[in-house]
């Protein structure tokens, strides 16, 4: 037990002020004792002999004079085999294990181990006695679900070490010693598990690369129009009911990532329950195994303690970085970063800091930037490449993108997927606004084709606005056709039926193929006697194309329908 102790001198919501005697350090973990419970807390400010702690649990019952124990370590998570398929709270307590032990409710003051201690793993050594290794080097592997989980030299170990002992192939538990390393300070025993402070990025790699390779999500509007790159960052702001969470859920299912970390931060419990109950029975088409096998869920829903929300996004990103260190492509989905920002605001208010805009703390921007900067694609010690991609939703107050969290996020992300109320009201899903949204990453389709499509979307929108004033009759046939083409592209390509098995996920190959045909259609000079005929043509073309979207690409029917679209087009194309 720690010898560093303190006494409570004040309680204000989830902030406790404690008087201490021996040195404490910023962000140190402390335990606040109430009756027979120890509530976990973190030092967030030190003034004189007083430390302000944010308590990650309900503070009811705390008394002035109560005991505080300082743990002499920063808030950390356990890293090792057994993380995949787990459902944790923001502080890495496994929720199913809590349910088993405590029933329906989340009790106070309970800390369980994150990694199962009794599970046996089949260890294969990769390093040999006498090898010289440094932090992040692989000592051996164990199979975890679909991957080889690398057992690495702990990331916090400075300098280089000589392997003096390595365990032979065999079955071990996470706390068993699998290697002994030596340097001039002495011998170091290594197990399959290591701890890492969540607020510090893992830097055991050689170099960072620029993200250029697409992370295919199988959603056409994303991959084609506003793409995401492996190791990149993106944000999804949108008013309530526009479909942020549904979009995240779809991405978590279909994205071309090896590991998906879902951080449900301060949102509805019901939505997490859907993932919890459905993922184990959904099959990942890439591996043929259950989706849960590539997933870790960090779940700190809105009714769970507020301060732990802040911890939850860091816990999630640390686990993401850990799997990146194994040369995997990891996707972290955080829903919603606004709730995390609100937790910062609550704490800042209790600390009586001078508030910034809308009472958010002045350091909001740098905290958000530091979080997104933990994404990246890196070259590891052994030359393999791994990546962490971060996608965060933002829930702007009143649906207004001018608010501080959205604005701070936009400055640091590589892609902006803005959801629009107008599109979701019109049931155009995904409700990403194709005109406002942007991405700095390369698309899966050729640039010239994309530019043309974007131009038509923009021009079509202008024509539509104009028609509201001058009526259809006042619009020229050429303008009217641009409008119809834009609407067509929107209806059959940008919109996607998430509930259809085929249309719900479109492979990159199919997107390229179809987008090429879209371009032919957008490029064609069409001839119609009157506007009604033009509208009727595009209505039926839309109908046929949507049916085509629902047909699997491998079938004969796919080719037949494609032919039919070409035939329909040929009938109305101007003869040169």
């Amino acid at each position: 037990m720690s010898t560093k102790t303190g006494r409570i001198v004040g309680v204000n919501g989830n902030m406790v002020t404690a008087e201490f005697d021996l040195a404490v350090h910023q962000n140190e973990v402390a335990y606040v004792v109430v009756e027979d419970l120890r509530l976990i807390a973190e030092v967030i400010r030190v003034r004189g002999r007083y430390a302000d702690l944010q308590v990650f649990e309900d503070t009811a019952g705390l008394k002035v004079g109560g005991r505080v124990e300082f743990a002499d370590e920063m808030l950390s998570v356990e890293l090792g085999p057994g993380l995949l398929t787990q459902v944790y709270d923001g502080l890495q307590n496994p929720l199913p294990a809590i349910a088993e032990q405590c029933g329906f409710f989340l009790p106070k003051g309970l800390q369980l181990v994150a990694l199962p201690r009794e599970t046996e793993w089949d260890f294969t050594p990769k390093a040999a006695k006498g090898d010289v290794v440094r932090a992040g080097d692989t000592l051996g592997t164990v199979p975890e679900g679909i991957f080889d989980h690398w057992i690495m030299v702990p990331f916090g170990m400075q300098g280089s070490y000589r392997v003096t002992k390595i365990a032979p192939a065999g079955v071990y538990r996470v706390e068993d010693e699998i290697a002994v390393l030596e340097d001039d300070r002495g011998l170091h025993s290594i197990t399959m598990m290591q701890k890492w402070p969540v607020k510090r990025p893992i830097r055991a790699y050689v170099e960072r690369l620029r993200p250029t390779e697409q992370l295919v999500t199988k959603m056409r509007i994303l991959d084609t129009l506003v793409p995401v790159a492996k190791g990149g960052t993106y944000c999804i702001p949108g008013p309530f009911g526009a479909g942020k969470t549904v979009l995240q859920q779809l991405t978590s299912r279909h994205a071309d990532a090896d590991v998906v970390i879902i951080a449900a931060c301060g949102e509805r419990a019901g939505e997490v329950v859907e993932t919890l109950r459905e993922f184990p029975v959904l099959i990942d088409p890439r591996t043929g195994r259950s989706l849960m096998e590539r997933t870790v869920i960090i779940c700190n829903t809105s009714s769970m303690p507020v301060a732990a929300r802040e911890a939850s996004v860091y816990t999630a990103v640390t686990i993401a970085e850990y799997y990146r260190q194994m040369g995997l492509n990891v996707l972290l989905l955080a829903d919603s970063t606004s709730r995390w920002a609100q937790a910062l605001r609550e704490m800042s208010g209790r600390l009586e800091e001078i508030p910034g805009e809308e009472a958010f703390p002045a350091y909001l921007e740098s905290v958000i930037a530091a979080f997104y900067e933990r994404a990246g694609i890196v070259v590891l010690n052994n030359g393999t490449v791994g990546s962490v991609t971060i996608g965060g939703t933002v829930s702007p107050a009143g649906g207004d993108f001018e608010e501080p969290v959205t604005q701070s996020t936009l400055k640091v992300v590589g892609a902006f997927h803005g959801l629009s109320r107008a599109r979701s009201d019109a049931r155009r899903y995904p409700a990403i606004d194709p005109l406002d949204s942007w991405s700095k990453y390369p698309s899966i389709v050729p640039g010239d084709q994309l530019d043309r499509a974007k131009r038509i979307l923009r021009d079509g929108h202008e024509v539509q606005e104009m028609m509201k004033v001058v009526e259809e009759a006042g619009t020229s046939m050429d303008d009217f056709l641009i409008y119809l083409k834009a609407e067509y592209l929107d209806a059959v390509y940008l919109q996607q039926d998430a509930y259809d098995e085929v249309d719900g996920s479109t492979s990159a190959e199919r997107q390229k193929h179809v987008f090429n045909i879209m371009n032919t259609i957008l490029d064609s000079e069409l001839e119609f006697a009157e506007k009604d005929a033009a509208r009727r043509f595009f209505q039926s073309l839309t109908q046929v194309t949507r049916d085509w979207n629902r047909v699997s690409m491998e079938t004969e029917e796919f080719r037949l329908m494609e032919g039919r679209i070409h035939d329909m087009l040929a009938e109305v194309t101007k003869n040169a």
Partner: protein
Amino acid sequence: MRKVYHEITQIAGNIITVEATDVGYGELADVTSDNGTSLAQVIRLEGDRVTLQVFSGTRGIPTNAEVRFLGERLRTSCSEALLGRVFTGSGIPRDKGPVLDDNMIEIGGPAVNPAKRIIPRNMIRTGIPMIDVFNSLVESQKLPIFSVAGEPYNEVLARIALNAEVDIIILGGMGLKYDDYLYFRDTLEAEGALSRSILYVHTASDPVVECLLVPDTCLAVAEKFALDGKRVLVLLTDMTNFADALKEVAITMEQIPSNRGYPGDLYSQLASRYEKAVDFDGAGSVTVLAVTTMPGDDVTHPIPDNTGYITEGQFYLRNGRIEPFGSLSRLKQQVNADTREDHRTIMNTMIQLYAAYKEALEKQSMGFRMSAWDLKLIKYGTIFEDRMMNLAVNIPLERALDLGWEILAECFAPEETGVPTRLIEQFWPTTVATADGSGGDGGDSEERAA
């Protein structure tokens, strides 16, 4: 044993400060003066300074009032004996029944472990077509009615409560007008539902801070009954008063406000209440239906805005009707596939046509030329509003779906609706004259004019 303190060092708003030791955060105290005794709760500890919010307000409290700490947190009695009774927010009887103090349970207890929740799967029938057909209410859902003062939101709540097939109804009134309180009580009594209801009522004339207790008490009792396997419906009206009370306390505590004076933790405060809605794995459920009156009819106001981010959809009640646009039940797709096979088709078709009607109406008001199709839409929209949206309509879901087909058949030819042929063959009414020409149209407008 319990120490008594006689020296209040500060009184501001509904907040008092005393110097005391060995007091727990969140602990209760009795504040007694010549005016009577009021319950208070510790909301800040700073050395020896203990700050309390006084639930019945500080009016008339002298600096030498007696403050006695009770050494316990907020609790309320919970047993079958509550059924049919009316209480204040702090559990004191409003009716002539006895005070209950057995089976005390903690208020504002811990959150439910997400691993012990299940995906909701049972529809709650309300008899209101705009809900049952278009935005089905689902057991364990949390759903607010967004409305403005003057709309019949309390009547809608009462209607839903009476129609819903639940075991227990708990009404939480916050800042309720006395008339409305009597309306709820008398309606429940007249329909024979009072015996399965519990009312916690804070009226507009009661001290503001007391209304903070209402949702927590209601939800704690509801949770207890749900754990015993009961299906509980909690009605909360009006959550705007609750949020305003939070604002008042926060301002008195000199907290930095975030948006229009509301505290930065408004989202968390509302969420910790709404998230009590739950379907337990292996026990009962809590469904929460709340009223949020939107100040200035502005949905971006912090109260409805934060609420919308928390709840699973919302009903807009405007001009005495539940609006089909904007209203949303996020859980409806969990249940509306298994009701009747035409349910989703009727739901989508009628709303799409109603949206087209709104466009036609706009064209008409701008003086644009109306096509034959526009006229059909206008006829349809009028009938739809009259027979479906009208809140006086109280029919089961199946009858409402039939009514939907009848309205469609009265206004359109089958192929104009975009309904799949299979369903047309099965459901399109044959008895009603199909609207293939002017005959049907003319007949109908006369009927309406009459």
